[in-house]
């Protein structure tokens, strides 16, 4: 997953949103999610305003709404939970389309749906406009512990190497007639996975030696440029709008 290998959640583009430094975008996304979560659930129009802010960001970034629709599928388990809640809540109850639904359950379901959907959409906006490498650099500039960013950076490189090894082992297995159709035949695949783990561990030790030999002293050298005040302002603008909406919603509820 290097420079020429974008991850499936990234949509290449040339918009102002794409050009913002990652650390500003990560902070902005986090602030947006916090504003959404803090919104009182009874004030339904506030969530509409949040969505409007997101739509404006998408328009600036040049990412179509359809792109988000297909990738929001990750939310499905929570949607199922939300749909079931109104049926299981207590009194008071209200009649909707012939079914007796609990009011508290309805509000809880709306809470999950609205905040979950908006959270997922904010994350997708961040992922869609930021390549994986820049995300890790942004985290590094935000003073995430060095261990986390080092592991993430190495993972970017070695996930593909390990996947390649696994592919070669699989080809070697099927070339020798291995054709696992039943559970009892997966022993060979499982042992392959075990030996892949050991090989990766040994490779990790060799990589550690190579890093030591080039003077590594515990933290990867910091990459990326600091963000200017204008860029920080631009990145925090949507979050500010959402925070204002949330504040107004609290005063009028």
């Amino acid at each position, binding site marked *: *997953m*290097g*420079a*020429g*290998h974008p991850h499936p959640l990234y949509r290449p583009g040339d918009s102002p949103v794409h050009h913002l430094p990652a650390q500003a975008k990560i902070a902005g996304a986090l602030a947006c999610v916090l504003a959404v979560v803090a919104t009182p659930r009874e004030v339904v129009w506030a969530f509409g305003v949040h969505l409007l802010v997101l739509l404006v960001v998408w328009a600036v970034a040049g990412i179509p709404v359809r792109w988000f629709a297909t990738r929001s599928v990750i939310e499905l388990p929570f949607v199922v939970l939300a749909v079931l809640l109104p049926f299981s809540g207590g009194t008071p109850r209200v009649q909707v389309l012939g079914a007796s639904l609990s009011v508290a359950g309805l509000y809880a379901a709306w809470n999950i749906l609205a905040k979950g959907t908006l959270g997922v959409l904010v994350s997708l906006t961040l992922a869609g406009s930021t390549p994986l*490498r820049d995300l890790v650099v942004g985290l590094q500039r935000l003073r995430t512990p060095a261990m986390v960013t080092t592991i993430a*950076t*190495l993972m*970017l*490189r*070695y996930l*593909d*190497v390990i996947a390649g090894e696994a592919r070669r082992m699989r080809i070697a297995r099927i070339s020798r007639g291995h054709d696992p159709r039943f559970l009892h035949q997966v022993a060979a695949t499982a042992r392959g996975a075990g030996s892949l783990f050991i090989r990766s561990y040994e*490779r990790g030790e*060799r*990589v550690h*030696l*190579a*890093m*030591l*030999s*080039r*003077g*590594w*002293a515990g933290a*990867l*050298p910091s*990459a990326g440029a600091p963000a200017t005040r204008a860029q920080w302002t631009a990145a925090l603008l949507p979050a500010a709008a959402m925070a204002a909406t949330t504040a107004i919603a609290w005063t009028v509820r």
Partner: protein
Amino acid sequence: MTASGAVGRTTAALRVCGLRFAYPDGRAALAGVDLRVEHGERVALLGPNGAGKTTLALHLNGVLTPTAGTVEVGGVPVVRTNLREVRRRVGLVFQDPDDQLFMPTVAEDVAFGPANFGLRGPALGTRVAEALAAVGMSEHAGRSPLHLSGGQRRRVALATVLACEPDILVLDEPSSNLEPVARRELAETLLALDRTMLMITHDLPYAAQLCPRSVILDDGAVVADGPTRELLADAALLAKHRLELPWGFTPGGCTP
């Protein structure tokens, strides 16, 4: 680097005295190795598998600590307090380029070493550009190492070490797994670098082409040390240490 320059060329680039090393389980890997390499020399380290060549190389930049004996790099002893300086002076290129190319792009890999030694900003960018130009990989600076061929990865691995501007270059099997053209291009690159070089190799013609002096290591000790051409002409010596010239190659046949 300035220290050794001021002293002049009387200090050896590399001095190994009585180096002994045993693995934790007691197995002796090195049994008293003595070696002296002068500045600008290119030395090949030959020997059968298991002789201790890679173990010796790992002692040169302080990765392994000897159980007895000393290693000095340009007069600086290799001890824990000097490790940073030693690692700046000794550039070790490992056998598997995938073990050394661990950053997402080529440029970042080459920048990793000099950045660790304190270089920043435009100076870092120039150093990276020079290192990539020295191995002829400038146009691949923004690519992931995954998309490079084996020979290209070896050259980038060499660039990552060259960027640290070491005094001594230690190469572990540089020509293994290379196609003939890549092998020749690497040889041309190495010859163009005017640095002290210690090359561990099984490839006797490569050693003959690149290194005027050879050292044969067997069972953890130096058994021969002399001009490459003489060593390769001594068939009995080669046979005693499981070395053989490849089919059709005669040491006197090709003149460098």
